[in-house]
């Protein structure tokens, strides 16, 4: 089979699941939908492997294959087919997406077991994976935009999965709208590129751009910044990030799948895919890199202060994607994509661990109320700690090789990129600190009541009350509380978490500087047109970068140990002394409040103005004869001819026609 046939198969299996699962929603027994949903993703993973072996058997320069199923929309020089592109980058993305998604599906088989929306959940999950694969396989920008919007819709559906919670529907709305803002950015970018290159498919855009644009052409910079806008909306980068923390309203596997491992990295994929454009417009790339650097620092400071377990991990995701963006926007593609893969492993693992703990807490997510779960949940404790070590970037873990590879690359690029790299190292310290803040606060210390009970073999039941809004939970549709599935008791959760722990530990093997550079070699054909792919970082400076990163990580972990274990109370003192700073971080730098003031409120005010002034005043009033307007006119009119309005109407028409005829008679004579 050809590579593109494998590519279509990759798409076909999850699509089949999406269609099949809801059709039988009334009669699927037990956990069958979960197994079907997982199987389709496993088959899709198999097809991705098929594509991998297929293109590996070809000459490196011929590993890029387009295939069109049919013409999607073609009119007046706008030409888009239903086309996929199978090349090393898309195969890499397919493998990461299907591989991690499969494990998350397996985890969900038990974790969501017993939820009322079990079939619905796996339908959405399959739909999401299909959309994500469409996004990465799309052979032209139109198909990319379709996949892009589909993942947004899937994300919306999963965030508001427990749709009777007002907090969940509000979060879904927020995520959807911000994603649409990103879609619009992509459409504008697509136009700017199409207008000058006449193409919508990737190869045509890239080759056309080289002819149409000189370096740093203004239009191209604008196009790239609109692409960045799309990428930032999807990847939750400042200032389009505010939806991601709220998206934690969705079930925990969703947080792992969409809001950590796959969807949010789509922006990184987009920048990597369109790298020839960014390399032609380095100013746009620099702006992207600077914003990404700000984001990674910003999100880490938030993660230091907030106390919601899942939201800490969410901010950590924003921060880590900032690193990836920094990597690809400074043209260190292999490193950015390497972190994308490693992050998928350890972040999915962290969310799964968090989900397990939150289940043990009966739905409670505040880490202030947690503690001492080490003995009650040994499996969760060990795997979570592995994930935390990978996130912190301790040597030999995948996160270390990937993240510090990016930072080493910024040093190699030199100039002002060094400043970005230094911010990255500072943040690496903070990252290690907040990672182990979670570990120490949740698993160490005095066991809380829930932990003690669990040691005695009893799972607590939480209160049926939404901690965010105080509203009584709806038991018909469900909510995070009543599902009590902890990794210690569920085989499928254990399997998924174990595999991810192994991958977090050993996944870094694909790119060890100077030793194994498999990932780099594999991706090279996609980036062969890049001016930077040839300039390998000298192994020495790479190892230097990794060394500094290791020190930063170790220092961060040590600081966390000191703050939470050696001198417990110290963080409280700090918080009291720097109350303002803490409040600033804790309130996420007031971004939500800012946007509320500058966007939401004015829009609502305009709506009220239209509704109360323009609509009755201008539309109903002024337009038809001032204050007496059509309203009074028509009522009077109706009253005066109660006998039947049609007669008047017919009369008018007849009079009109009569006049008309008269006119022509006069004319023609």
């Amino acid at each position, binding site marked *: 089979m050809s590579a593109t046939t494998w590519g279509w198969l990759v798409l076909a299996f999850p699509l089949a699941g999406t269609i099949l699962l809801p059709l039988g929603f009334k009669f699927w027994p037990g956990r069958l939908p979960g197994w079907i949903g997982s199987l389709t993703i496993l088959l899709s993973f198999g097809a991705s492997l098929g594509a991998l072996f297929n293109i590996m058997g070809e000459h490196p320069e011929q590993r890029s294959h387009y295939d069109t199923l*049919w*013409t*999607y*929309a*073609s*009119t*007046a020089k706008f030409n888009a087919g239903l086309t996929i592109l199978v090349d090393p980058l898309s195969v890499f993305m397919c493998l990461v997406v299907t591989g991690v998604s499969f494990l998350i599906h397996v985890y969900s088989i038990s974790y969501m077991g017993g939820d009322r929306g079990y079939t*619905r959940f796996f339908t959405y999950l399959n739909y999401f994976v299909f959309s994500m694969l469409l996004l990465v396989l799309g052979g032209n920008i*139109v198909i990319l*935009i*379709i996949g*892009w*919007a*589909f993942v947004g*819709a899937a994300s*919306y*559906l999963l965030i508001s999965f427990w*749709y*009777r919670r*007002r907090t969940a*529907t509000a979060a*879904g*709305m927020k995520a*959807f*709208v911000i994603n*649409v*803002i990103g*879609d*619009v950015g992509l*459409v*504008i970018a697509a*136009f700017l590129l*199409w207008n000058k290159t006449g193409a919508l498919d990737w190869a045509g855009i890239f080759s056309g751009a080289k002819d149409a644009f000189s370096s740093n052409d203004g239009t191209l910079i604008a196009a790239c910044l609109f692409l960045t806008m799309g990428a930032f909306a999807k990847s939750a980068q400042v200032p389009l990030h505010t939806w991601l923390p709220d998206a934690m309203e969705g079930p925990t596997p969703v947080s792992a799948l969409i809001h950590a491992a796959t969807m949010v990295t789509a922006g990184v994929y987009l920048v990597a895919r369109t790298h020839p454009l960014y390399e032609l417009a380095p100013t746009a790339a620099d702006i992207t890199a600077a914003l990404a650097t700000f984001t990674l620092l910003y999100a880490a400071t938030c993660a230091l202060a907030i106390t919601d377990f899942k939201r800490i991990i969410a901010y950590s995701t924003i921060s880590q994607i900032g690193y990836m963006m920094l990597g690809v926007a400074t043209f260190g593609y292999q490193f950015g994509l390497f972190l994308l893969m490693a992050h998928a492993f350890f972040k999915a693992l962290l969310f799964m661990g968090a989900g397990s703990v939150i289940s043990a807490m009966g739905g409670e997510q505040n880490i202030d109320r947690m503690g001492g779960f080490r003995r009650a949940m040994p499996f969760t404790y060990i795997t979570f700690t592995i994930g935390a070590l990978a996130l912190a970037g301790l040597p030999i873990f995948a996160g270390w090789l990937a993240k510090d590879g990016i930072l080493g690359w910024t040093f190699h690029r030199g100039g002002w990129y060094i400043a970005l790299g230094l911010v990255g190292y500072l943040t690496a310290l903070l990252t290690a600190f907040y990672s182990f803040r979670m570990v120490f606060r949740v698993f160490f210390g005095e066991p809380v009541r829930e932990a003690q009970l669990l040691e005695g073999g009893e799972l607590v039941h939480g209160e049926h009350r939404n901690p965010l809004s105080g509203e009584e939970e*709806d038991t018909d549709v469900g909510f995070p509380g009543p599902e009590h599935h902890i990794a210690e008791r569920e085989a499928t959760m254990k399997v998924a978490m174990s595999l991810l722990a192994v991958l977090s530990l050993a996944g870094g093997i694909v790119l060890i500087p100077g030793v194994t550079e498999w990932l780099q070699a594999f991706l090279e054909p996609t980036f062969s047109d890049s001016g930077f792919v040839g300039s390998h970082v000298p192994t020495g400076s790479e190892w230097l970068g990794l060394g500094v990163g290791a020190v930063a990580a170790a220092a961060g972990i040590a600081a966390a140990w000191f703050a939470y274990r050696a001198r417990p109370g110290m963080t409280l003192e700090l918080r009291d002394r720097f109350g303002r700073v803490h409040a600033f971080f804790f309130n996420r730098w007031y971004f939500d409040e800012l946007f509320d003031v500058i966007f939401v409120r004015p*829009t609502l005010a*305009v*709506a009220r103005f*239209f*509704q109360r002034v*323009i*609509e009755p005043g*201008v*539309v109903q009033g002024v*337009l038809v004869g001032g204050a007496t307007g*059509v*309203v009074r*006119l*028509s*009522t009077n*009119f*109706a009253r005066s001819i109660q006998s039947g*309005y*049609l007669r008047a*109407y017919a009369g008018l*028409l007849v009079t*009109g026609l009569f006049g*008309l005829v008269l*006119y*022509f008679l006069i004319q*023609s004579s």
Partner: protein
Amino acid sequence: MHLTIPLFIPLAAGIVGLLLPRGLARWASLAGTLAVLGYSVAMIVDFDSATRGLQWVTNETWIDTLGIHYKLGVDGLNLFLILATAFLWVIATLYAAVREWDRPRLFYFNLGLAETAVLGAFLAQDLALFVVFFDLMLVPFYFLIGAWGRGNRVYATTKFVIYTLSGSLLMLAGAVALGVLSTPEGGQISFQLSDLTVHPVGHGTQVWIFLLFAAAFLIKAPAFPLHGWVPETYRATPIPVLILLSGILSKVGMYAFLRIVIPIMPGASATLQELMLVIAVVSILYGSVLAFSQDDARLVVAYSSIAQLGFILLGIFALDPKSAQGSVIQMLNHAVVVAGLFVIIGVIAARARESESLERLGGMALRAPVLAGLFLIVALATLAMPGSPNFVGEILILFGTFDEKFVYGLVASVGVVLAAVYMIRLYQRTMHNRAGPDVASSDLSYRLDLPALAPVALVLIALGLYPQFVLHRTEASTTPKIVRAAIKAGSDPGPQHAEATTVKGATP
């Protein structure tokens, strides 16, 4: 193919229904609409998409002295509007047929008369004939809303009729003037569109005649600020009639811009392009903003239609082949989604003690998962999510507008975001959140609801997968309609669009 047959089938079915026993009128009417649908599908199969001109032309002299011809014809421009008309009449009749109506024979007769009038307006290739059908449309709708409506229906119908009638009379004056003034010295007066296109009237005359036509079509659309009749009329109109009013009647004016106004008055179209674009953009923003601040579910859809028609108007008056194509497919798409939305509102109201207030609805997805699923498809298509057919329309409209008038395109893009707000809000306030006080939900009824709703969802999915099916057939006819106006607009560039001097789409 003989176009008189589908044109008068619905009326004939209505008359047959009048003669049948009360209970059978609905089936006669349904059979009529299905026959028209079958005929229009056959037309699409038989259609030669390479031909630019009219196909299956019927041309008889009707009133010789006045030069009025009974001339019908189909090209890519109206092919799918006829399909949309046929399809929506089937949906509306299906929806109506499983419910009970007072005086059913008259009800179905009016539905049939309305379909004939609308088909006539779409098929007419003679301006006078178009005017006749355009005005004829008003009569059955007057009765359908006035006699079978709800609430304050007398007030609503009066307002509706006065508004649209004043528009019609303006257009009538414009049409007569056009026919007379374009008659060559010593020649025979003719209202055939082909003749009117060949003999353009002077520029100054074009401008005021254009304004007369535009007033009529924008009232019908409706577009800001001529939508004053919308709130009351939409509230009063029964659901099956509302499907047609909002889905099809709104398109007649838009279609007439492309069929009549722009080809016959290219100079005025170019001169007044900016005015129309401003109306379009303001309609988009104004309609969207009001759509997300309404409590009445119908009015959400009503104001959203103003915004969507703003997009269609934008695409037409960008005077660009891409955006014109986008507008043509968007007319079809919007007709389909509006039909779906109003059927859904009817279905929801039936499960909520006839309440259509968002404050009193909510949480229906639990007991009605099939309804929630179908609603989701329709809602996402309405907000033009990529992958839906509406996205293809919208992206073509935006591309064309960016190409000709970049700033208008940017402002219109804001409407894309606002559409997400009002549609998701409508979806959540009905399907999600807590069950409202009026909600006693149960799932779709296979007899009452699914026959009308399932075809809508299927058509949306099919069009979303293969929009080229439409674009391919409309292309040859759409582009020539705007070429002359586009050249005129380009040859007289305003200060802010110097790049338009290179005429886009001047190729035939």
